[in-house]
């Protein structure tokens, strides 16, 4: 062989050796240096985790009756992946062909669904199919609870509806229909914002590094939220979301390269969420909601005169609390809604209607989320303030046991001008404060001032707080006592969306003006502001629940509870201990005993004809508790005495709100009864319904009547077809003697 040939052979050899060295190097890199990283990829290549939703916990009433449960629901779904695969099997090879088929199929399907009674648009189906929050492998729900015939029809035609399946899943079910809707709330698909918010719960700072990016997710229970998960939106469903939500089940599966299941490697069954037991008594709740609607319906029928605002009676609220432990027994808000409408999502149109102020916001829980003037129901707290801060007996103010004469008005002593004889001038200057209807009364002491609702008596007290120097009388005394009773502050009930309300002091009034002079043009607090507060008007804005809770405190002798709507949380595992809430005492208010007795006697007089002085008129709620002919009930006040206070709140440009706050059974030896063990405190506020004595008080009387006679009708569960009110009107309520006719104005 020639030398050049040998050299060229060597060139070939060198090329071969270099190529092999390169291969070895790369192989070493992949299999020794990068192996750990690539193994992770290999693992994730073949494993998938499928999740099955866990049923949420149930919500029960205080007697263990189920208010919210889960039911199996038939659902028609479409699966993108299966749909496309089925179409390819059927010979639709191009995307265009498949799109064309799908358009026709949706038209077909929408037609069939609509015919079966589920109005469905083609656009709805297309939107569902293209919903980016689902993956190609998810079963996307497109119709629910369709009739059986259609289910069979769809199920038997896989060639006509490829990828469309009929399945069952679990949805919320409300055996009592609309009852307690505001308390229970509703559930819906988690939104993007909620997803981000909830994701934060599972983000734990990595302790090993200062890098803020290095967050890790800790979710040992596997409860972390994913798109399309159900989440409580309002009410108990939202407040106890973390308890009610179960632990989703998981199935770890191995898949091949086209995603077919090869093997199931691990599976965990879903765990149902904890049950929430309410303090609500569903019978009382249903009765209260029914009476609330009745009272408003009746108020609406009342004709008003030309120069009065009409009684539109669009909305109202009612709350019943057990004063012994702060349990909320019933809490109603009108208008209301059906949580069942939210199953599978609600249309924007419908949701907007439920939130529209012109429709009176049916979604709003007025009992905790609306603020009202307390009106005369506030007077007991003014009375206590007057005693605590020594207003009684101060200068021109007589002591609480001294009867005074009420001419029907109070001329402010702080007004320098003497308006005697000049009624017009006095009223125009704001120096004369009048009773409602200019009623005149004789022999008015504290007790009678409450019984007959003398505003004049309280104007006098209210003004004294303004006149008196700090050294003698605390100028914010009324506000401070009201605050001790929990008025104008959140009660801490276990529900979202609670409003605090407010009872302004002079300083807050000025600060408010300074912060926003346009909205609040007046910044200087005057004697009129104090007299307004004294009768629960003006700067007094409280929720019905606060008022009920304050009356519960009056009833129990001074203990302020944070009201409970939930008794306990019961975990699904019987070996786990339930979480008991128990009474939550916030504080105790020291009420001077003599004045306390006077207040109780005064409030008791409201529902009766005081026997002390027969020349005086009966209490403001006498008709409601004694005169069936006047729209009241023949109440057994001897065995179940009721202490209460009517309220008629002035609202600018509208008819008055009708209020009544009461508790019982609560008597006093003054009135010849020794029964004094209040078990119920109740507040009713009817918007734009006139005098408290005319509509709110009779409603409370009807409620207490069935309670006192132990004849609260058993709430009916909802049957298909019946509306909630029809249901309950047609059953036990007729027997319970509901007053149907209109009341006289």
């Amino acid at each position, binding site marked *: *062989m020639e030398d*050049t*040939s*040998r050299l*060229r*052979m*060597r*060139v*070939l*050899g060198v*090329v*071969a050796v270099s*190529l*092999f060295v*390169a*291969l*070895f190097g*790369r*192989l*070493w890199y*992949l*299999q*020794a240096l*990068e*192996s750990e*990283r*690539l*193994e992770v*990829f*290999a*693992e994730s*290549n*073949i494993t998938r985790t499928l999740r099955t939703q866990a049923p949420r916990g149930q919500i029960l009433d205080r007697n263990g009756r189920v208010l919210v449960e889960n039911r199996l629901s038939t659902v028609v779904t479409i699966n993108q992946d299966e749909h496309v695969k089925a179409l390819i099997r059927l010979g639709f090879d191009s995307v265009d062909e498949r799109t064309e088929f799908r358009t026709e199929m949706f038209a077909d399907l929408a037609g069939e669904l609509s015919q079966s009674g589920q109005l469905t648009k083609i656009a709805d189906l297309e939107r569902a199919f293209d919903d980016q929050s689902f993956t190609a492998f998810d079963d996307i729900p497109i119709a629910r609870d369709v009739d059986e015939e259609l289910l069979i029809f769809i199920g038997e035609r896989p060639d006509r509806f490829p990828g469309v399946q009929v399945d069952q899943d679990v949805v919320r079910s409300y055996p009592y229909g609309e009852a307690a809707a505001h308390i229970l709330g509703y559930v819906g698909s988690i939104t993007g914002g909620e997803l981000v918010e909830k994701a934060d719960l599972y983000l734990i700072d990595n302790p090993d590094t200062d890098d803020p990016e290095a967050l890790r997710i800790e979710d040992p229970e596997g409860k972390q939220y994913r798109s399309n998960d159900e989440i409580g939106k309002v009410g108990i469903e939202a407040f106890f979301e973390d308890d009610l939500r179960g632990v989703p089940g998981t199935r770890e599966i*191995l*898949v*091949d*390269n086209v995603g077919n299941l*090869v093997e199931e490697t691990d599976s965990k069954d879903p765990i149902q969420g904890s049950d929430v037991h309410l303090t609500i008594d569903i019978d009382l709740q249903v009765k209260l909601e029914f009476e609330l609607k009745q009272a408003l319906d009746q108020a609406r029928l009342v004709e008003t005169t030309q120069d009065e605002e009409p009684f539109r009676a669009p909305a109202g609220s009612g709350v019943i609390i057990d004063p012994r432990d702060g349990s909320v027994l019933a809490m109603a808000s009108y208008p209301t809604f059906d949580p069942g409408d939210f199953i599978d999502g609600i249309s924007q149109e419908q949701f907007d209607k439920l939130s529209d102020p012109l429709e009176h916001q049916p979604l709003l829980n007025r009992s905790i989320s609306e603020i009202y003037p307390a009106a005369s129901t506030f007077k007991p707290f003014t009375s206590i303030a007057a005693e605590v801060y020594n207003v009684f007996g101060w200068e021109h103010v007589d002591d609480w046991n001294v009867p005074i004469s009420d001419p029907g008005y109070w001329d402010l002593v702080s007004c320098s001008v003497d308006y005697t004889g000049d009624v017009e001038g006095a009223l125009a200057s704001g120096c004369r404060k009048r009773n409602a209807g200019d009623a005149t009364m004789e022999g008015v002491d504290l007790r009678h001032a409450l019984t007959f609702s003398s505003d004049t008596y309280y104007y006098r007290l209210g003004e004294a707080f303004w006149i008196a120097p700090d050294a003698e009388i605390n100028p914010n005394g009324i506000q401070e006592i009201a605050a001790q009773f929990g008025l104008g502050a959140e009660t801490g009930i276990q529900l979202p969306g609670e409003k605090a309300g407010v009872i302004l002091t002079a300083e807050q009034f000025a600060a408010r003006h300074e912060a926003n002079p346009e909205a609040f043009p007046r910044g200087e607090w005057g004697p009129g502001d104090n007299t307004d507060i004294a009768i629960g008007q003006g700067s007094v804005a409280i929720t019905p629940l606060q008022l009920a809770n304050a009356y519960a405190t009056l009833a129990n002798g001074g203990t302020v509870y944070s009201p409970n709507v939930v008794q306990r949380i019961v975990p699904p595992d019987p070996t786990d201990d339930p979480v008991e809430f128990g009474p939550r005492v916030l504080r105790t208010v020291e009420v001077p005993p003599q004045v306390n007795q006077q207040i109780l006697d005064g409030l008791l007089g409201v529902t009766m004809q005081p026997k002390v002085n027969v020349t005086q008129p009966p209490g403001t709620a006498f008709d409601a508790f004694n005169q069936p002919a006047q729209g009241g009930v023949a109440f057994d006040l001897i065995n179940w005495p009721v202490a209460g206070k009517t309220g008629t709140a002035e609202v600018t440009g509208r008819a008055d709100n009708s209020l009544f706050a009461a508790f019982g059974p609560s008597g006093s030896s003054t009135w010849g009864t020794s029964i004094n063990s209040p078990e119920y405190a109740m507040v009713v506020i009817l918007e734009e319904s006139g005098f408290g004595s005319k509509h709110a008080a009779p409603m409370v009387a009807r409620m207490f009547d069935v309670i006192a006679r132990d004849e609260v009708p058993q709430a009916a569960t909802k049957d298909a077809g019946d509306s909630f009110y029809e249901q309950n009107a047609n059953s036990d309520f007729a027997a319970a003697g509901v007053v149907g006719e209109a009341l006289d104005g």
Partner: protein
Amino acid sequence: MTTFRPSKAGFNDRETQGPLWIRVDVSIVLLAIGLLSLGLIVVYSATRGIPDPETGAVNRAFIERQLVFVGAGCFFAAGVATIDYRKTRLAVPFIYVGTIALLVGLFAFGENFNGATSWYSFGFVTLQPSEFAKLSLILALASWFSSVQSRDGLQLVNVMLGLVLAGVFAGLVLLQPDFGTVMVYAAIVAGIVVVAGVAIRHVIAVLLVVAVAIMAMIQQGFLRETQLNRFTAFVDPENTARYNVNQSEIAIGNGGLTGKGLFQGTQNNNSLVPEKETDFIFSVLGEELGFIGGAVLLALFGLLLLRIWRVAHLAEDEYGRLICVGVFSMFLFQAFQSVGMNVGMMPVTGIPLPLISYGGSSMMTSLLALGLVENVHAHRLR
């Protein structure tokens, strides 16, 4: 290197005398057996499928056919090795023309798989003429360059004529289209041209011509988009064709040093690497037998190439030497390209791993090529 350099005095009688089975290079036979065994195991793993959960039955169809191919390949290789390559040299033009006929015939009678018309189908078996054309090309080029070398030297015109011989095959195969096989032809040409002693300036001129030709083909649309994609996937990680390589790399990385164990590769068992029994067979080996398995395979190939290289040295005439160089270049390029593609070093082109990948034509061609080398070894000094 010196150990392999033959010295006249040191001729081993056993290697040059006696019957054929005594005169063959036993190392080549043993190395081939090693590679074939490794290949059969890996092909079985790649093709057995998921065992039936009840009966444990697996798919034996592939491995049984592969065994037939190996058997037939060995038989024909022995036949090829028997008759002195010099005596059959006159037949080379006929083999060359016959090959052209087979390649042309594809356009009339060929079967189209995966977008390429590269196969004749005879019911139970298919034949890929472009594979056998490698041998035809080796013989033709070896014959041409060795004859012009001795007759009137390697003038440019002769070099160009030799390239035309290869160009005819290449053109026909590109029309199928099968770019990968053409690259093997190019490697064969390169090896033979280098060892035949073509002047550097000629090599440069030839390279220019080839470059222009490739540009023209791209321009004229002879290369399909998918083939260009595969080629550019090598440098463009976003390319969809990159998927195959990614999965292959994951498989090989998953194997680690010692491998997941035979039949235990998840990438293999879940068919995550496409074409895993043919072009991506190395990924299966890498995943299940690990770096150790891959290193053994590369070592076996390295030693086999070394032995072929040695036979080229030993060859007494230029014709025999160039045959061995052609076979050497073919094996070297195919092994490097195939393994290189599997580990993500080389572009994706459908080239089987010689003696390993599933496929009759490829197996037969590889074994026949070794038969040619053994022929050169056995018939030297005669």
